[in-house]
C-alpha cells in the first residue's frame, strides 16, 4: 500500500503523554481514558484497515459537558483530536494520529426521546443507524437512510459522512433526514443547530456539519426524522442481454416519472460471482441485472410495477421476476448484499471504489471500466446504485504481487477520474477521508479548496480537529488507494457492504 502523508508530528505532545493522560483522567472517569499499547490497538484504524496509526491516547467521554471540557483542554494545549463513531467508515476519516487524542463517542449510546407526535427521535450519536429503526418499528415507523453497514455504523458517523444507502434516491441521504444536532466546537463551545422543527432560520449550519467528516465539530446529539413504514414494498429482478439495454431501461424508468425506492445494477462478472457465492437464483445468462424496488400503497405499487415491466420489455429484457412475498423480496436482495464477500472469494484481494456519475452515462462508464480492466489485466466486477448514479467497481487482485498492487491503485484512480470526466464526483457515499484526499483537486480548483479551508479555519483556527483528512496536504494529485480487502478479511467481515 502506498504511503500517505499525515500532518507533521508534534513531538512535544508525545513527550507530554503521561501528563496529558493524567489531565484527561480528571476530565472524565479514569476508566474512560486508555493509554496502554494493548488498550489502544483496537483503535488503530477504522474500516480502511490498510492504514494504521497508534493514537496518543483514547478518551471515551460520557456526556456533552465532558466532551466540551476535553476539547477545551486540547484546544488550549494545542493537542490534535480525531473524533470516532463506530469506526466503520471506508475512507479513513477516523484514522488516528500519533500525536492526537482519539475521541470515541461509543458511550453516547442512548436514545434520549422518541416523539411520535413530532415524528422524530432524539438520540445520542453512538446509537446505531438500525438501532433507531428498531426503536420505532413496533409503531410502524422507520429511519430512512440505510447505509449497508447500518447494523454497526453510528448515527453520529452518519452525520459526519452524510451517509446514504440503497433508498436515498427516493428518501434522500442523512442531511435530508435530520432536523437538528447538538455539537461541540474545538474550543469547547456547545452549540445547537435546528431542533424538532423544519428548516432552521439563518445559515444552515446543520447542513454544513453534515458530511464535514469530523473536521468542524463533535456531534453529541442528533434529532432525526422518522417516516411511516410503507404499506407495500415489492421488488423486481430483471435480466438484460446487454449493458446498453439495461442501462437504457434504468434511465427510462427514471425519466418516465417513476421514483423507485431503490434501483440497483450488477454486471455479468458480479452476477456470476454472487450467484456462486449466495445461490440467489440470478439469471446467469444476463449481461446486466437490474433490481427495482417500489413502495407505497397497494394500487400505487401495482401501477408502478406495470410501468416498469413495460419499460423493461421495450428494452428487450431477457428475464423478469417479481417478488410475491417479503421472503422473496429479501432473497432478491441477498445476492446483491453478498457482492463484496463474493468478490473476496474470487481473488486474494479486492478494492472497492466509490464514485458517482450521471445515470445516463452508465453504459459509457461500464464500457470504459471494461477497457481499463483489459489494459491493466485485472478483473473487475461492478455494482451500481443506479437510482442515484453511485458506482462501486470492485477490482480483484493479489496484494502480495507488488506490481499488481501498483496497477490496481492506478486502475482505481483512473476510474474515479473517468467519473469526474463523465460529469460525476469522486465519492458518492464513502467520504473523502484520507483515501481520496489527493483526488480532491480533480474536482475542485484552488479557489474552491481555499474557500473550504477558510471555513475550516474560521471554526477551528488552530487546525486541531481531525487534521490531515479530506483536504490534500501536498499540492499534488497522487494516485492513492481505495478500500483494500485482503483475503476477504474486512475489518468488519460480518457487515454487509453494498
Amino acid at each position, binding site marked *: 500500500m502506498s504511503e500517505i502523508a499525515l500532518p507533521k508530528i508534534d513531538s512535544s505532545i508525545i513527550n507530554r503523554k503521561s501528563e496529558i493522560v493524567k489531565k484527561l483522567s480528571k476530565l472524565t472517569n479514569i476508566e474512560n481514558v486508555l493509554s496502554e499499547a494493548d488498550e489502544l490497538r483496537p483503535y488503530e484504524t477504522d474500516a480502511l484497515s490498510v492504514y494504521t496509526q497508534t493514537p496518543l491516547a483514547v478518551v471515551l467521554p460520557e456526556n456533552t459537558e465532558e466532551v466540551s471540557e476535553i476539547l477545551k483542554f486540547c484546544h488550549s494545549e494545542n493537542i490534535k483530536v480525531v473524533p470516532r463513531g463506530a469506526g466503520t467508515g471506508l475512507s479513513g476519516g477516523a484514522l488516528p494520529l500519533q500525536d492526537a487524542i482519539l475521541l470515541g463517542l461509543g458511550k453516547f449510546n442512548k436514545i434520549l426521546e422518541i*416523539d*411520535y407526535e*413530532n*415524528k422524530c427521535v432524539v438520540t445520542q450519536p453512538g446509537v446505531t443507524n438500525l438501532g433507531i429503526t428498531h426503536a420505532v418499528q413496533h409503531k*410502524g415507523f422507520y429511519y430512512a437512510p440505510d447505509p449497508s453497514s447500518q447494523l454497526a455504523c453510528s448515527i453520529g458517523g452518519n452525520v459526519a*459522512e452524510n451517509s446514504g444507502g440503497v433508498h436515498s434516491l427516493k428518501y*434522500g*441521504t442523512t442531511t435530508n433526514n435530520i432536523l437538528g444536532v447538538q455539537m461541540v466546537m474545538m474550543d469547547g*463551545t456547545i452549540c*445547537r*443547530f435546528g*431542533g424538532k*422543527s*423544519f*428548516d*432552521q*432560520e*439563518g*445559515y*444552515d*449550519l*446543520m*447542513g*454544513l456539519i*453534515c*458530511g*464535514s467528516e469530523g473536521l*468542524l465539530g463533535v456531534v453529541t446529539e442528533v434529532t432525526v426524522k422518522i417516516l*411511516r*413504514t*410503507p404499506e407495500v414494498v415489492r421488488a423486481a429482478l430483471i435480466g438484460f442481454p446487454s449493458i446498453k439495454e439495461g442501462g437504457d431501461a434504468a434511465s427510462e424508468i*427514471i*425519466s*418516465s*416519472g417513476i421514483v423507485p425506492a431503490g434501483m440497483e445494477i450488477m454486471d455479468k462478472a458480479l452476477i456470476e460471482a454472487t450467484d456462486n457465492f449466495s445461490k440467489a437464483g440470478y439469471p446467469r445468462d444476463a449481461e446486466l441485472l437490474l433490481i427495482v424496488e417500489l413502495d*407505497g*400503497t397497494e*394500487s*400505487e405499487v401495482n401501477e408502478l410495477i406495470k410501468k416498469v415491466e413495460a419499460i423493461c420489455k421495450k428494452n428487450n429484457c431477457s428475464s423478469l421476476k417479481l417478488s410475491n412475498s417479503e421472503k422473496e423480496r429479501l432473497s432478491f436482495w441477498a445476492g446483491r448484499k453478498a457482492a463484496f464477500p463474493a468478490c473476496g472469494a474470487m481473488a486474494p484481494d479486492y478494492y472497492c471504489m466509490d464514485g458517482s456519475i*450521471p445515470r*445516463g452515462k452508465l453504459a459509457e462508464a461500464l464500457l470504459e471500466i471494461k477497457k481499463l480492466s483489459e489494459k491493466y489485466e485485472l478483473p473487475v466486477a461492478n455494482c451500481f446504485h443506479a437510482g*442515484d*448514479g*453511485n458506482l462501486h467497481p470492485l477490482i480483484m487482485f493479489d496484494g502480495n504481487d507488488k506490481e499488481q498492487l501498483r496497477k490496481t491503485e492506478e486502475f482505481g484512480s483512473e476510474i474515479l477520474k473517468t467519473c469526474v470526466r463523465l*460529469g460525476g*464526483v469522486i*465519492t*458518492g457515499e*464513502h467520504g473523502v477521508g484520507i483515501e481520496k484526499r489527493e483526488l480532491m483537486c480533480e*474536482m475542485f480548483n484552488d*479557489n*474552491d*479548496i*481555499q*474557500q*473550504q479551508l*477558510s*471555513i475550516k479555519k*474560521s*471554526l477551528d483556527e488552530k487546525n486541531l480537529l481531525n487534521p490531515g483528512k479530506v483536504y490534500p496536504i501536498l499540492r499534488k494529485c497522487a494516485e492513492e488507494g481505495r478500500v483494500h480487502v485482503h483475503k476477504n478479511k474486512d475489518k468488519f467481515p460480518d457487515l454487509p457492504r453494498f
Partner: protein
Amino acid sequence: MSTKIKINSQIFQDSNNIYYPKDETEVSDLIRELYKQDSPTEIIGNNSKSFIGNKTQSANTTSLSKISGIIDYRPEELYIKVKACTPINEIEQVLSENNQELAFEPIDFGFIKEGKSNKGTIAGYLSCNYAGSRRFKVGSVRDHVLGFKGVNGKGDIIKSGGTVVKNVTGYDLSKLIAGSFGTLVALTEITLKVLPKKDSSKTVIIYPSNFEQIYDFFNKLSSSSSEISGAVFIPEQSKNKDFVTKKNSVFKFNDLKSNVSFIAFRVEGDKISIEEKINNLKKELELNNSDISTLDVYQSEPFWKKVNNLEVFEKTEHNLIRMVIPPANGSKLCKYLENNHNYFVDWCGSLFWIEVNSKKEEKIKDLKKMAKDFGGYLTVIKTSSEYDYGEAIFTVDKVRLIISEKVKQSFDPKRILNPGKMYRGV
C-alpha cells in the same frame, strides 16, 4: 477598459446607480474591485423578495438580473442547471413541458407585496429557502440544490456540489448558501434536482370543531402510510370581518363551504391510488362522507396555488410573520392566535403565517418568545411601513450568531455582500 475604470465611469451602472454585470467574470471583477475599495454592495436579482430582511446599508447595488438563462436541462437525469437569476416562471415552464416540476413548490411572494404574481428568480428563492406546502413531504429548497457557482466577498469564483444526487465530496456548501440572503456569495449558477409531476391530485376538506381536533387530524394525516402532500388549516376568525371576507373570496370553490374553519389535505398520484389513499385516510380519521368535501383536480390545483401565493394576506399593510414550530405545540399556538391575529397553518401543523397589526408591533415580541418556548423560530417577512426594527427580523441565539459571523468572515471578510441583511455583523 479595466473594471476599476468601468466602475468609476458607471458603464456598468444605470441611472439608479445599479451595477448590472453580464456574466460570472464581470461579477468577479466587480466584487474584486469593491473588495479593494472596501465598498459594500447590496445584491439583488429581480427585486421580488428584496423586501425580506433588514435594509442593507451600502453605497452600491449589484443586480444579477442579467445572469439568466437555462444552461443544461436533463429530464432523464432529474436535474436542471441554470444561470442564477433565471426567472422561476421560465424554469417551471421548461420543466412542465417534460412533465416535471420543482417539488418544493415555490411560494409567490408577489401577492403579499403588490397583489399580483412575481415569483422572481431562482437565486432569490434559494437565498430565502422558503418552501411551499409540500415541504413536510419533499424537503425544502435546500434539499433540492445539487450544486452552485458564485463569487465570494473577495471576488473569487467558487463552486460546490455537482449534478449528481449522491455526493459527499468536501463540505456541502449548497446547504449553507440556501437561506443565506446573499450574504456569503453572489450566485451565478445553480443546479437543481427536479422531480416528475404527479398524474393528478385531489383535495379533501374537513370541518373540525376545535383546536384539539385539528391537531389530532394533522397527527393522523402525517402518521399515515397513505401519504399526503399538503395539509393546511384555514381558520374562520369570526372577530375580524375583513379577514373573513378575504378568506371567503380567496377560497371560493364550488365544493367548499364558506364561513367555517377548515382543514384541507392533498393527495397526489395516479387516479386509482388517489382514491385508495383517500379511502384509507377516511377510515384512519374516522370521517363520514357527510363530514367532508372533495375538490377534484380542477379545484385542487388552484386551491394550493392560492395557499402558496399567501393570497389571504394579499397586499397586506401589516407585519407578516412566518413561524415554524414542532407540530405538537400547534394547538396551543392556535388558541393564542385565535383572539389576537389573523393567521393560517401549513405544513401539516408546523408552519404559521401570522399577520400582526402594525399598531400592535410589541406583539411580535410575545410571538417571538412563544416561538422560542415551543422549540421553533419566526421571521418577520414583510414589515409595515411603521415597523421600527426594534424587534429583530430574524431569530438567532448568541452562539449561533458568533458562528455565523465566523462563517461570514470565511466567505466575505470585508463584509462586501449584503452587510446587515440578516444580522448586525453578518
